[in-house]
């Protein structure tokens, strides 16, 4: 086992948690990511293998599915696979082994930073952040959206509970935007 210590996207050794009134924004570094893009002509095969990996049918457009390994749709015949970091640090390789030549797989774990938003006024907060009709988002919905000029993914875990994935290098700006919106809705 290597001896290099990791830091979170916000630069801490421990994940950051902010609470404003009843809304909580929690940094979530404990997730591994890998992108899957079907090779041309092998879309069906790739879907099948991915379904096997996440244990459920591959998610449709704008959806995510699976547990503990899950996937969300990112583009035509493209998905992002999510898994717990501790058990799946080598996720890309594991996915590649599972899917083989049916798809191109790329490690994305540290390309993104994740913030989980929970609480009563979370919809009011998201309303200030992104153009998505968040009040209409149901459990299992996943959508790309620009937040503070940053390309993000917004996943609805359950009503009132969302995950936001944003580019890791801009974690500070994204976090600042979220917390500012939280205060704004007070």
């Amino acid at each position: 086992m290597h001896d290099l210590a990791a830091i979170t996207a916000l630069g801490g050794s421990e994940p950051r948690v902010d609470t404003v009134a009843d809304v909580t924004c929690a940094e979530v570094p404990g997730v591994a990511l890998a992108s899957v893009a079907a090779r041309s002509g092998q879309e069906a095969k790739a879907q099948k293998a991915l379904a096997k990996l996440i244990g459920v049918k591959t998610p449709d457009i704008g959806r995510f599915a699976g547990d503990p390994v899950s996937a969300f749709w990112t583009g035509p015949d493209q998905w992002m696979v999510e898994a717990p970091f501790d058990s799946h640090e080598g996720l890309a390789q594991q996915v590649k082994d599972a899917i083989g030549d049916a798809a191109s797989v790329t490690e994305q774990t540290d390309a993104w930073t994740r913030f989980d938003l929970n609480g009563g006024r979370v919809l009011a907060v998201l309303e200030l952040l992104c153009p998505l009709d968040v009040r209409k988002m149901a459990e299992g919905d996943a959508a790309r959206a620009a937040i503070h000029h940053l390309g993000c993914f917004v996943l609805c875990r359950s009503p009132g509970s969302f995950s936001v994935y944003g580019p890791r290098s801009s974690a500070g700006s994204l976090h600042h935007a979220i917390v500012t919106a939280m205060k704004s809705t007070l």
Partner: protein
Amino acid sequence: MTQVNRLSGGLIDRNSTLNFRFDNRNYTAHPGDTLASALLANDVRLIGRSFKYHRPRGVLTAGSEEPNGIVELRAGNRKEPNTRATTAEVYEGLDAQSQNRWPSLKFDALAINDRFSNFLTAGFYYKTFMWPAVFWEKLYEPIIRKAAGLGSLSMEDDPDEYDKGFLHCDLLIIGAGPAGLMAALTAGRTGSDVILADEDFALGGRLNSESFSLGDDSASDWAAATVAELSALPNVRLMPRTTVIGAFDHGIYGAVERTGDHVATLPVGKPRQILWRTYTKRALLCAGATERPIAFENNDRPGIMLASAMRTYANRFATTAAQRVAIFTNNDDGHRTASDLRAKGVKIAAVIDVRDDAPINYEFEVLKGAQVVDTKGRLGLTFVEVALADGSRRILECGALGVSGGWNPNVHLTCHHRGRPVWNDDLAAFAPGDDLPPGMTVAGAANGTLSTHGALQSGAESAAIALDLKGALPDLPKAEDAPINQTPFWYLKGCARAWLDQQNDVTVKDVKLSHQEGFRSVEHLKRYTTLGMATDQGKTSNMAGLAIMAELAGKSIPETGTTIFRPPYTPVPIGTFAGRMKGQDFHPTRLTPSHYWAKERGAVFVEVGNWLRAQWFPLPGETHWRESVDREVRQTRASVGVCDCTTLGKIDVQGTDAAAFLNKVYCNGFAKLAIGKTRYGLMLREDGMAMDDGTAARLAEDHFVVTTTTANAVNVYRHMEFVRQCLFPDMDVQLISTTEAWAQYAVAGPNSRKLLQKIVDPEFDISNDAFPFMGCGSITVCGGLRARLFRISFSGELAFEIAVPSRYGDALMRRLMQDGEEFDVVPYGTEALGVMRIEKGHAAGNELNGTTSALNLGMGRMVSKKKDSIGSTLSEREGLNEPDALMMVGIKPVNADDKITAGAHLMDASGPVDAKHDQGYVTSAAFSPSLDCHIGLAFLKNGGARQGERMRLVSPLTDVNVEVEIVSAHFVDPEGERLRA
């Protein structure tokens, strides 16, 4: 000071009293008052001065269409110029100042302009101030500029926060008057998602201004009850203090919510205003109508206002401009104002009605077929002169005159897609046309349905149609349904100084002159006279101007033209459109994986696009950046240096056609690149110019990692997706950015291999034989951490780039510094990076400036003729291949102490120095610690053949004129022995 003009009743809260200041005098008001109503209650009629003649001004209206009653609200860095007193809510401690006057509102020196008004007619300035020529800028213009403008900015940063948000609904209802409320009720009860927005702080529109009843309730009570029901519906969002400012494409409406303008101070973090980008399937415009004045001599005195505004002040705000008032009208509505005021105990001098058949009234005198011909009162109305039907004159004493010239539907938003309103004879006004913005319908007075019953009904019906609702509509309360009864009357024949645009001082005379001089189209009229260009955008003046022009041209009004409107409906603070994106938050900031470590080291950072990169790492005692940079270069070339190059774009290219794909996007060949090897690639635009360069490393038969420059990462990725999806859709290739996933560091210098060998796990041999120049591969470091190693060099030294997952980047950098101590390792920043690449003659951003071809860059031969690649065909055009084409060269000063300036131009050693003799220009320059002099890269005509030539380097902009020698761009290790070592 007591509120002498306070009347009974109204929608103000008399249980609490608010203190406010105007022009440094204290007054009192009640919650529910606007600044205008409060000032009138305190018998203050004079509020401002006009733009050009500095004529005394009072309030004309009771709403956002106000041209006259504008003030500077608040003080210090929150000073807010040109704020309408008629919409500003009074709060405890409100402080307002009159504007555009000196030394005081009552005694304004520039009121002298009024005396010279005959010389200052429309467009006079186009005809004079031309001689002598210099006087315009030296004398005339400064005077004009000083006099111009209305309120003043604080010149300090706006301390308030602004926000932006996004709303979605099935039906956006704009305006909460009778039509809007009824529409909301109709739609809301069916469960549709409804947003009801109104610019007023009290929902209800005219219902709050009228004395009649709806069913068994007073109009305002009915409004309140309806609002109460709506606010209980979860699917209805009520948005008072929210102005829908514009109708944009595809059902997007801009709405500005004033969340903090009605309070003295905001809690930290709360926005003053929010811009809501509202997405709606259908929109229903219920914006009501605006009463219009009549033009007659001196119709602009404080105390002269719209009759409907007078009624609003009496019924809603329980105040009047004076205890004795007269009404001048061409329609029945004016009579309603008279009886409402009389009911509140205000004396009615008379109702002057231009119609011979005007209705009689036993409560007050009605002068039929009469006209107001002039008025008196310097700072406020004292009496009006009336021409009676029999031609005789009569003087009426009054402190206020209500004018009612009929109503204009508020069609503004229907014009935002350049739609044109159509003329309606019954109204003698323009009503919405057929070419509305898609998805918009119009109801109530905005659609020309002026009666309350008509508004309620059309609101309900329009909502039902918009949402395609089945079933019965809600019952309508019984309401007045009076027909329109008016005789169009725009201005008094023969009047001259009769105001149309009261803020910009445009009079009937100016319109006549505009016509006389041939400025007869609406656009020419507006631009020549400035009619309708003031802060009210002519809401109360455009129609009369148009009507007069029509009469002069002997045409009908619709023949003469229409007045169309542009966003925003009312002016919006610039800060509101910016929201949070200001100061440090203007753009997101991207941090590299080694950022926190670099900060500890005291690095100086520089913005590179959105990235913050370490520019250099000063050591204690270093006083000038050059010391740090020179040291970083020397130490790297002498031993080993480390630089964070994560910001370079990285694109993962996979698929069975990956190599064929790269063959298309790069002008040089990639098909034969061996696995485990890296190759430099030059990417052209289709027009043959260099777009970007970088390296492609082949990790497997079907897997490449491509790098781009930091600046072009996004564009190159977009371009590659274009080539993949649009040009070669059947290629089996997949792309994804991995820029942020990996922390990538350049480890450069003769000892770079030794340093890396300390962290690369032993099973990986990185010796020169096993891992030669341009090699690449996946490895592990520090005991099993997955990593990638590339043997590429930007510095010209033996060098590697090593990449690990970003979260470990910080630790890896610390480890490299620690393990590198024995080699005296140095971290280097973008400055040293730049110096070393110039010493090596590598093109970068300054050379890849979008106007340079492969030929210019000295890479002409790289463009393969054996294959098709983007840009190859157009790169062969004659103009891009002329014999004296610019070629990249190196330059050195002949006198070693001379400095080379980037941006300087090259001229022949002797001969004239001008554009005609321009030979080229310097793109990059630096002091080279290795050569111990300044050096530069330049593009020089036919530069390939001019090595050894002496030339003159000139930069007249910075007073540089030195002799230079043209040399090879490869200043350091031209044979490239070091990087192969």
